[in-house]
């Protein structure tokens, strides 16, 4: 077979590569190289098909990871919720424990049944003569003035603890108002503090009976609740603390309260 010599330029070469070249020996060569596939060239079709089917079936686990991630996310959320509950319980318990530790009962005293916030305070409506504040001060007052002075000093030393414990048991906002006999003191309540400032002289001058409990004031209005609350030695100071703290300075309990809470949280 006689063939013409081929002169290739750029355009001809591109035409050859694209399969649009004129009839030249190189064109025939490329046509032979790109001939349709023979049966033996696709003998591996069954294996490739099986591999494709196998890959398609093993692709299923790759679809599941979103669900796995979802379950993992839900588990994380659950773990966080549990941790938050534990943290809240620990903080509350820490505050209660700290309050209990600060007001540890003296030897011979009964166990304090309720936090300081539950200790009833003298209400302005209650007359001093009929419902004196029952502060179980130490039973060694030399005189009324001396006893008031010692009570004020003792109460000043314990005022921070009392306020902190009162703050720890602060009722939530919007809670129903308790009965007048057991209404807790809320240090943040300015009108009530003003009322207590007015009531302080009555508390300090009115001597309390040693048999009265701190948590339940003596008097007709408190006798209903006095039965379950035994008297405790430190509680007088605790009960007196709000009165003195309200009469002296308000910022100090507030600062101590703010400084005490982190320690409670830090312990737990």
């Amino acid at each position, binding site marked *: *077979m006689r063939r013409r010599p081929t002169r290739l330029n750029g355009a001809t070469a591109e035409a050859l590569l694209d399969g649009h070249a004129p009839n030249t020996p190189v064109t025939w060569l490329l046509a032979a*190289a790109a001939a349709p*596939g023979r049966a033996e060239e696709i003998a591996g079709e069954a294996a*490739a098909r099986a591999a*494709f089917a196998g*890959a*398609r079936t093993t692709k299923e686990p790759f679809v599941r990871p979103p669900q796995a991630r979802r379950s993992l996310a839900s588990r994380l959320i659950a773990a966080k919720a549990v941790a938050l509950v534990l943290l809240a319980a620990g903080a509350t318990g820490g505050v209660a424990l700290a309050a209990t530790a600060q007001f540890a009962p003296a030897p011979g005293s009964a166990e304090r049944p309720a936090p300081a916030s539950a200790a009833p305070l003298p209400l302005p409506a209650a007359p001093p003569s009929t419902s004196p504040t029952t502060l179980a001060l130490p039973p060694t007052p030399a005189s009324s003035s001396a006893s008031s002075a010692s009570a004020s000093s003792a109460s000043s030393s314990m005022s921070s603890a009392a306020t902190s414990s009162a703050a720890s048991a602060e009722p939530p906002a919007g809670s129903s108002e308790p009965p007048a006999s057991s209404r807790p003191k809320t240090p943040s309540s300015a009108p009530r503090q003003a009322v207590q400032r007015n009531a302080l002289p009555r508390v300090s001058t009115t001597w309390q009976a040693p048999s009265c409990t701190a948590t339940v004031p003596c008097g007709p209005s408190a006798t209903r609740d006095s039965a379950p609350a035994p008297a405790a030695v430190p509680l007088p100071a605790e009960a007196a603390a709000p009165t003195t703290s309200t009469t002296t300075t308000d910022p100090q309990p507030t600062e101590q309260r703010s400084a005490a809470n982190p320690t409670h949280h830090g312990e737990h």
Partner: protein
Amino acid sequence: MRSGVDTRHGYEADTGLETALGAARAGEEWGFVALYRDLQPRLLRYATALVGAEAEDVTAETWLHVARDLHRFDGDLDGFRGWVSTICRNRATDAARVRARRPHVVGDIGDMGAVAEPPASSDTADDALTGLSSRAAIALIASLPQREAEAVLLRAVVGLDTNTTGAVLGTSAGAVRIAAHRGLKRLARMLAEHDA
């Protein structure tokens, strides 16, 4: 890339293969089979020029890779051909490296005639030119320097355009064009010398 895989060889139109590619990506086996039947013969010839008799193993590994990762492929038919060609070239390079064998270079064109279809005559070049032996034609192209042979094979046999060929070979489109032109000129000279 040329329109239609190769109309002169009666291959399916690219439009049908685009549909097959979409079906294969969606997990349809018929789409994968259509792509395999279209591309495997070209891929095998390209791999034969690279690694010789190990081309079937190389292409088998290539299709295993394709079957495994096809659902993650994102592109058109040209990109798919380039992707498969790149996998095949990497597998061939690995095979050549592991077996300490340089890319297959056929020194004697007549040797390929024995493994190819039975030639009609004793002249392998004549067989290639008359279209009787595609393997003889591949053997002649494989006798070129490797870069020129790869450029000619990827462009004329596998059916890639210049840019895709450059991506497969890791070179620029201009370098591919130059290599392909040089290869074609060398083939023309070889055929002319053989004819003379």
